[in-house]
């Protein structure tokens, strides 16, 4: 085996490690989230335990200040986090990619207007935007949080898509494809989207992590999913006052949050290498 091939396969191995770890972390989260639909150790509303109990065989992670089982809360929090991440990314991707592609084709004036609008939207703090959406819908719910985060993400995705699509549209193969009679719509679906997908998908994973964290912040501020929906953010907020007496109440949701976000990022890294066959080529 030549040295070049060795380095390529070594690179592949390293990336498949990232993919594996990412899959495991996200997979655990996903399994737990699905599991909570059928079974949780306790009823999430059951406050039968003592207040702030330490971990025991009955309550593996102890109980919160209302006497609810912390593991149950944490597990349901995983479901909330995934729901928020997937929902926000779905909304953000649909609006963002469409807008970005349209902007890439727009006339110079329309493009400038769109770019400026997007920049303003992006400069607008996500949490503030989310608060506005929540205020406008006069009650905080999981869906207003998802919608708000989706809108914030769509601006970022749109700007990225616009830049990436413009770059692809300048390539010779677009002209080559056009000369053989491909319509612009065909060009978008056959060449532009596949070519920007590797970069976009990484960004989606990144935004996924940020959305999960943003939802935690919203819940922390009391603007996320209202009780009894458990969310890691609210668990953190509730544990704040008792962090010295029962540190596990803050540590557990914190770790869960970090594991999911890291898992998503690793997964994105691994997926990119599958999506982009030209990586590993030395230019």
């Amino acid at each position, binding site marked *: 085996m030549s040295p070049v091939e060795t380095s390529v396969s070594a690179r592949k191995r390293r990336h498949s490690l990232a993919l594996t770890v990412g899959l495991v972390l996200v997979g655990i989260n996903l399994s737990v989230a699905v599991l909570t639909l059928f079974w949780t150790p306790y009823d999430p509303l059951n406050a039968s335990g003592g207040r702030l109990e330490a971990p025991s065989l009955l309550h593996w992670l102890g109980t919160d200040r209302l006497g609810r089982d912390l593991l149950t809360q944490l597990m349901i929090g995983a479901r909330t986090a995934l729901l928020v991440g997937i929902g926000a990314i779905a909304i953000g991707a649909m609006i963002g990619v469409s807008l970005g592609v349209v902007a890439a084709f727009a006339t110079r004036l329309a493009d400038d207007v769109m770019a400026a609008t997007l920049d303003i939207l992006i400069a607008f703090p996500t949490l503030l935007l989310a608060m506005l959406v929540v205020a406008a819908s006069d009650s905080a719910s999981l869906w207003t949080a998802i919608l708000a985060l989706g809108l914030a993400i769509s601006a970022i995705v749109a700007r990225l898509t616009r830049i990436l699509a413009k770059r692809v549209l300048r390539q010779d*193969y677009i*002209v*080559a494809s056009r*000369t053989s*009679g491909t319509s612009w719509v065909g060009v978008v679906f*056959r*060449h532009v989207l*596949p070519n920007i997908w590797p970069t976009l998908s990484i960004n989606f994973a990144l935004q996924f992590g940020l959305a999960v964290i943003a939802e935690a912040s919203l819940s922390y501020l009391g603007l996320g999913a209202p009780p009894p929906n458990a969310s890691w953010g609210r668990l953190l907020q509730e544990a704040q006052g008792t962090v010295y007496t029962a540190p596990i109440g803050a540590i557990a949701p914190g770790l869960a949050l970090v594991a999911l976000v890291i898992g998503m990022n690793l997964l994105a890294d691994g997926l990119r290498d599958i999506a982009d066959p030209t990586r590993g080529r030395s230019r």
Partner: protein
Amino acid sequence: MTALLDIRGLTIRTGDKPLVSDLSFTIRPGERIGLIGESGSGKSMTAMAATGLLPPSIAVTGSITLDGQQVVGAADKVMNRLRGVAAAVVFQEPLTALDPLMKIGRQIAEPVRRRLERDGGTASKDAIGREVRDLIDKVALPQPDRIINSYPHEVSGGQRQRVAIAMALACRPKILIADEPTTALDVTTQAEILKLLDQLVRETGMALLFISHDLPVVAQVVERVIVLKNGFAIEEGPVGTVFDKPHHDYTKTLVEAARLFDEALGTTGS
């Protein structure tokens, strides 16, 4: 027989700078024409104008009729029905002319599918697959199974250009526009690609517009040449006549340069 490509009084300019000035020529079905000139003489611009693919910032005046359809000012929808059907293009740099993230088999299959659908036939997976293999065979690509499943960066430059030619052939165009198709290739590969183009054009009977800065290269595949300089056509005629009795000084220098180059090769080569 009516002209396949009829260019009259074509002027192309960006801003105030003319790139092509008052160019006129016609190509009849099956005819092979060479467009010669150095970089910046407007050759490629003419080719892009013929398929209506110049960016809107570049102004085109005059008349271009491709297969009976006026190209100048035509709507994109109209042109899309013409592209591929009337004319297909092979570009200079085969690496950038192929989508880096699409397997070669799929890239060739695209125009094949479009043509089958256009002809009213059913574009079944089998029919497309057969046709793709047929085309790969036609352009003499080795190991079709490997090529079909390769990405453009995984095959050689000459092979990439064969793929690009296969894609152009897949359209079964009435005229093939070859824009410096051998410039990015080494001399040996260049000769092979020229031979292939020549043979394919003869077999299919399609017309050829061959664009190059290299007179000897053009002379191998065309019957008639047009010499462009600074956007003006300065000389036109059968390839033998232009080669043997060039009128214009510029053409003389081109011929002379080519002759000197050949001589240099002859003395050092053998």
